[in-house]
């Protein structure tokens, strides 16, 4: 049986979603995506890039990779802006998938969860399949599901911070409460071990960008993340041991010669 993740009726084997910004060059971006095995990449839409054929070269390069494109509304600070960007993205990238970001704070890039729910409702009514970038707040998650989101993407830590999973308790709570909703840790992942940890918690996938794009060798780091997500997923299926406070010898001592005389 193959172990696949389901997003809006489509199945994928890779559990690593990769962003396409900030790479040293398109050639390195292309090699990194190949090395990562990612089947979904996010592409942010800057308005300049959409006027006619102006951004075509970059878009052609992404298309040549044969991966599913998940456009995002990165950098949008209001519902209206996010909805407009999503509509443009639908035209440019020819998909009804949208990673919805409504930024609420300029410094922390924290999602504006009120605007997020509102924008998600509007976009879903227009037929979009929304991947919301949200916090780890359970109630916000419920609201997003109630307006029709079929995926939730809570942050691990602020975008680009590389701090890993800041609130493991909240992430576990979400997993426990939404056992059948595909959950993706989006943002904050800095190391392959963070990605492995998310998968070990039972998260369906991770989405990251800076950790690969800004690595010394992005292609090598992409491969490292591919292995880490695979390891994390295997570990989740394997059923981890319970941690405990006391040492337990891995080799039994009882019955060994001379053990009774010690």
């Amino acid at each position, binding site marked *: 049986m193959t172990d696949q993740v389901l997003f809006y009726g489509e199945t994928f084997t890779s559990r690593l979603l990769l962003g396409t910004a900030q790479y*040293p*060059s*398109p*050639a*390195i971006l*292309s090699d990194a995506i190949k090395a990562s095995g990612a089947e979904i990449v996010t592409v942010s839409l*800057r*308005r*300049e*890039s959409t*006027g006619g*054929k*102006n*951004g*075509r*070269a*970059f878009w052609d*390069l992404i298309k040549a990779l044969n991966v599913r494109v998940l456009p995002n509304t990165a950098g949008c600070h209001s519902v209206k802006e996010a909805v407009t960007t999503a509509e443009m993205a639908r035209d440019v990238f020819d998909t009804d998938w949208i990673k919805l970001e409504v930024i609420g704070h300029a410094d922390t890039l924290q999602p504006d969860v009120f605007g997020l729910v509102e924008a998600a409702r509007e976009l879903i009514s227009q037929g979009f399949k929304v991947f919301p970038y949200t916090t780890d707040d359970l109630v916000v998650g419920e609201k997003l599901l109630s307006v029709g989101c079929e995926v939730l993407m809570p942050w691990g830590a602020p975008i*680009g911070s*590389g701090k890993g999973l800041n609130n493991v308790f909240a992430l576990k709570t979400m997993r426990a409460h939404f056992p059948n909703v595909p959950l993706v840790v989006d943002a904050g992942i800095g190391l392959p071990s963070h990605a492995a940890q998310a998968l070990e918690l039972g998260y369906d996938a991770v989405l990251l960008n*800076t950790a690969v794009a*800004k690595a*010394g060798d992005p292609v090598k780091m992409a491969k490292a993340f591919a292995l880490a997500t695979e390891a994390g997923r295997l570990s989740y299926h394997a059923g981890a041991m319970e941690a405990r406070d006391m040492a337990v010898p891995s080799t039994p001592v009882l019955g060994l010669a001379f053990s009774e005389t010690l």
Partner: protein
Amino acid sequence: MTTKDIAIVGSGVMGLTAAHQLALRGARVTLYDRNRDVGRGCSWWAGGMLALWCEMESAEPLIGELGLESLSYWREHFPHVINKGSLVVAPPRDTPDLKRFAARTSHFEVIDGKRVAALEPDLAGRFETGLFFEKEAHLDPRKALGFLSERLQKDLGVRFVMEGDVRPEALDADHVLDCRGFEARDVLPDLRGVKGEMLIVRTSEISFARPIRLLHPRIPVYIVPRDDHHFMVGATMIESSDQSRISARSMVELLNAAYALHPSFGEAEIIETGTDVRPAFPDNLPRIRRDGKILRLNGLYRHGYLGAPALTRRAAEIVMEGKTFPEVER
């Protein structure tokens, strides 16, 4: 031996340095440009930083090699190179970016706030630490273009045909060098445009001796001092070939960064804004492509002044001496 007749199309830093390298090697050179004045493309809007070690933060090693050669070229042939190094700083909360920058580059000194203040008195008390790339240099691109163009015409007998909108294919010469930058995209299908936007501001409240890079996770900028209290603030990098105008967002970001570097920039006059499209290949490295008797020199990306002299030296040696340069002939 007969003198070789060379035609060059494009009078940006690529075309001008190509003309220079060829004229130095005894060729008879005619340079064509569709504009009335020289260098009115990307070269006009460039920062003019000869910052090869800083560029290693994101560029391939080849840029370092070309950059080192180009730095010597400018020092030898252009009398107004400013050899004061460059300075890299970051706001306190972005020190991880400074660490990353240091890890990816070389030929710098980590300096403390006192040293920052000694180098740039107007930054006193503003930054606790910085990276000083002492061996780097910078120049004013517009001065360099003017100087080269005059020297080529007055001393080296290069003929300039301005407002000559010619196609390289239509020219009758022993060799034609296509130095048109992004205009050549119809014959270079893997060439793409990377939009860049910049500002020139003026304030007499502060002065800098050298280019300063301010690291920021989203909008890294550099500020290059020019004559008469002018400062060039640049530059955005957007995957787009839109050549229209600077966007409000880019202007806000550039000015914000300048203001973060020093609040006096808040009072500066905005003298000029500029937008153009850098020509780039997928690996952001320049190339020389042979196409019959045409050599297409392109893809300098953000490394115009840093790459052109070294690339055109190679082109000149291909044409005059039959050499090959696999590192750029791809």
